[in-house]
């Protein structure tokens, strides 16, 4: 190893150490003040109406590849959702069913049928659809009230706008790192017309725009 290369790798090691030190505290709760829990249960109502067909034009960016499609979410019953992605032509890309803690793949294109892909999508939709949230901690700042809940080994943070009482942001984290960020925009009552799902540790971004005429 040449001298300059050794210096470079030393520098890299130092940088990694520094980075890992700073990431030991979760950025999500930085500058937030703990507050007493007022509500032990919070409800995410964005996909809660069994009479509504939740139909979104979707744009998916994954590791430099781009796919469009139509994402269809339907609440069938209490704690029971169907989630289907079709191409613009209507052919199904995948068809998932969530019922309580059970998850079923009704169909999926062969090319996408990989454990990693299915698991990532499953977790994202569980995060998006989970309606009943048990609050374990509460935080506050000038703009938001934040409810924290336990999600197996991870945590979910629900950011509720203090003025509008709308859920605007949902962050899934490990003990030290943010993993998935969901942002709800163009909120119309119990409907979020624009949703962005962004992953921090993999290059996956899903943009959803509600189709109004359906």
């Amino acid at each position, binding site marked *: 190893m040449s001298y300059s290369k050794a210096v470079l790798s030393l520098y890299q090691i130092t940088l990694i150490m520094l980075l890992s030190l700073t990431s030991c505290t979760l950025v999500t709760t930085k500058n937030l003040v703990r507050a007493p829990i007022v509500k032990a249960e919070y409800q995410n109502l964005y996909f809660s109406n069994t*009479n509504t067909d939740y139909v979104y034009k979707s744009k998916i960016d994954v590791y430099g590849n*781009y796919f469009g499609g139509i994402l*269809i979410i*339907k609440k069938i019953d209490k704690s029971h959702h*169907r989630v289907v992605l079709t191409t613009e032509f209507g052919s199904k890309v995948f068809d998932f069913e969530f019922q309580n803690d059970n998850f079923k793949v*009704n169909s999926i294109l062969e090319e996408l049928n990989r454990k990693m892909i299915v698991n990532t999508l499953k977790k994202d939709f569980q995060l998006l659809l989970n309606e009943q949230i048990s609050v374990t901690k509460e935080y506050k700042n000038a703009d938001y009230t934040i409810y924290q809940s336990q999600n197996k080994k991870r945590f979910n943070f629900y950011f509720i706008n203090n003025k509008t009482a709308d859920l605007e942001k949902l962050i899934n984290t490990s003990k030290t790192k943010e993993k998935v960020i969901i942002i709800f925009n163009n909120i119309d009552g119990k409907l979020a017309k624009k949703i962005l799902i962004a992953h921090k540790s993999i290059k996956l971004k899903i943009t959803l725009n509600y*189709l109004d*005429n359906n």
Partner: protein
Amino acid sequence: MHKFIFYIYSLLIIVSVHAQQTQMSQAEIDIFKSRVKTIANNTKTILSDFTQYKHLEFLSNDIKTSGKMSFKAPNLIKWEYTDPYKYSVIFKEDQLLINDDGKKSDVKIGSSKMFKKLNHLIVNSVSGNLFDDNEFDISYYKTDSFYVVKFTSKDKNLSKYIKEFILHFDKRKLHVTEVKMVEPSDDYTQILFKNRQDNIPLKDEVFTN
């Protein structure tokens, strides 16, 4: 008694549905096929509006999208959705040229057998020139106003995704008025054509992204 009346009514409905759609004789099929072929051979371009309905058994309403379809012989085709979003796909040789509301991408379909078959089906269904295909089992029916042709794929890979492909032909003009793709789950995509114009000049630029 009520049950009995209900039973009679159901029977009547079933009988009338069957009466509406009858199988064509071999002689009728031969005439129909040669007429469609003549029309397809004389069709250099097609420009048509379309409305697409996506039916999923669990939805309250079908998902409705609409736009324009352009076809230029022998195999250029463009689907342009304009409502409720802008999205276009051009089938060109072994490529799909996609423009998703300004975001452009190309998909090489050369490697995907299934996509090639779907492309082939779509191009030929629009021109109506599908009947010599060895890859499908084809059956012919007629109603008061339509000829109905049903295709089922012999290819196991394709039939995993599409159970049946149904075309409606207007009896007078022999134009394709409806394309229906039925999935194994019986969910389907239905495309209805209207305001069709034949043989108006369409520049090749229409088929660039």
